[in-house]
């Protein structure tokens, strides 16, 4: 199967004050693991834009995206029935463990974590999904979250997920933590995981060009067998073990 498709927009809707859900139907169904991503060609732009997969019903690919610049503005402008040029799925995926799982999302990072939750639920793996947003208008419609925090306290607990994560670890006693969100959130979760001896898996982001590990544009430092080496977020990642990542400040 060649990983580039002429596809069509099957559904597109605004799901929060800053994010959109788009569902894409390819000629043939495409099946995606949680944590993997696709890339979208955005009219006239040189670099394709990467997005984590959020849903995968009947081989259709759903993504949740936040409007940021030219690329996401273009995707937002698409209508049902429009052609869309996508490639993927790319990257590794969360290594699903049959263990009590804590799922942490922050902002749009909740998307791949929400998809992971459906996979865990399907396999009857006990889990708790906590996610943080700026305010209640930022919570994507339709996303099933066990515990929500908002920075301004307009919904759920007030403050960032980081304020609660320590308490939840102590109370819920997870055996594995999966996370996606801003760099600082992933860094702190990895540090907590190391402190409490809990495995962490974090989904990273980096600007990408090729998406398949050849251009070496998206490398981060990771620790492997006592050595620091380059790893590509697009192919070796996007999911890394928290303790392996060399965190930049």
């Amino acid at each position, binding site marked *: 199967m060649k990983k580039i498709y002429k596809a069509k927009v099957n559904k597109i809707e605004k799901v929060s004050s800053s994010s959109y859900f788009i569902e894409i139907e390819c000629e043939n169904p495409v099946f995606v693991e949680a944590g993997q991503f696709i890339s979208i060609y955005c009219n006239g732009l040189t670099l394709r834009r990467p997005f984590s997969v959020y849903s995968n019903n009947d081989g259709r690919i759903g993504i949740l995206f936040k409007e940021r610049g030219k690329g996401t503005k273009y995707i937002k402008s698409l209508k049902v029935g429009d052609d869309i040029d996508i490639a993927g799925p790319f990257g590794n995926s969360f290594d699903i463990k049959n263990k009590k799982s804590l799922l942490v999302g922050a902002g749009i990072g909740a998307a791949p974590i929400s998809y992971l939750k459906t996979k865990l639920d399907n396999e009857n793996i006990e889990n708790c999904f906590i996610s943080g947003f700026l305010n209640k208008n930022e919570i994507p419609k339709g996303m099933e979250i066990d515990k929500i925090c908002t920075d301004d306290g307009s919904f759920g607990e007030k403050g960032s997920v980081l304020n609660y994560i320590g308490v939840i670890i102590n109370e819920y006693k997870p055996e594995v933590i999966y996370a996606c969100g801003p760099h600082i959130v992933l860094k702190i979760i990895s540090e907590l995981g190391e402190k409490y001896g809990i495995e962490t898996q974090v989904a990273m982001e980096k600007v990408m*060009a*090729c998406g*398949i590990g050849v251009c*070496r544009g998206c490398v981060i430092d990771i620790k492997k067998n006592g050595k620091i080496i380059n790893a590509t977020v697009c192919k070796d990642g996007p999911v890394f073990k928290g303790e392996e990542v060399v965190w930049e400040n």
Partner: protein
Amino acid sequence: MGKLSVNFNGFELKNPILTASGTYGYANEFDEFIDVSKLGAIVTKAISLYPRAGNKHIRITETEAGMINSIGLENVGIEKFIETKIPELKQNNINYIMNVAGSTIDEYVQVAKKCENEKIKAIELNVSCPNVKSGCLEFGTDENSLYELVSSVRAVYSGFLIIKLTPNVTSIEKLGIAAEKAGANAVSAINTLKGTSINIELINGKYKKTIVQGGYSGKGIKPVAINAISRLYKVINIPIIGIGGIETLDDVLEFFAAGAQAVQIGTSNFTHPNTAERLVEELDEYINKNGFKSLDELKKELRA
């Protein structure tokens, strides 16, 4: 050989569509998207004597009409290339040109010797990489250093030797002439232009600047490439392989008109990973539709 074939005195390409160094991996990586064996050749990522880790910090950024990269020649090194990538290339029937980088003449020579031993049919010397502070830059910008480098490599390597020229010079003619005099079989042009992007964001009343300095490639550099090739075509007799911002069949024809015998596709592999394969098909169709008997006939018409 088919209608599209190109014969560079002994080094044969089934068509003139190649992929540019650093944008296509080492071997069959793009088989996720296309049948790589259909291409004229792939040019590998730059390979140096020893593996290199490349640059830190942000390595790529998009610009209005292309991108800037500062990968810093991260690569697996010649030993690993020979051991793991050449078998893959052979097994998949992929014609290839090995791109070589080094910081001293001796490093280039040692790599070239290994290529000679391995009977690698063609190599392209990257003498124009703007990322590495030591070495590279001087070879490609000074005709005497370039002459010395090319003759040293020529002395140990008998295969098809291509010199990849940098556009970051005042007179590219002088460098092309030096390469030819020193025994190069062809030149390729152009490598990336020097570029810097400063992305400015206002966060909580303070400016946050993200600076990426490196090689500018893509659509925006095409006129610079066409200019370089047109000028080289007037003064050298060895074949020119054109590179720079190629995306469409019209671009390919423009490069032929300027004097290129073959072309390499770089950045647009990222935009549309099937670009190179599509161009082979479109060129084939174009030649048949317009009744050309061969690629040479088309080039002749374009240059008349």
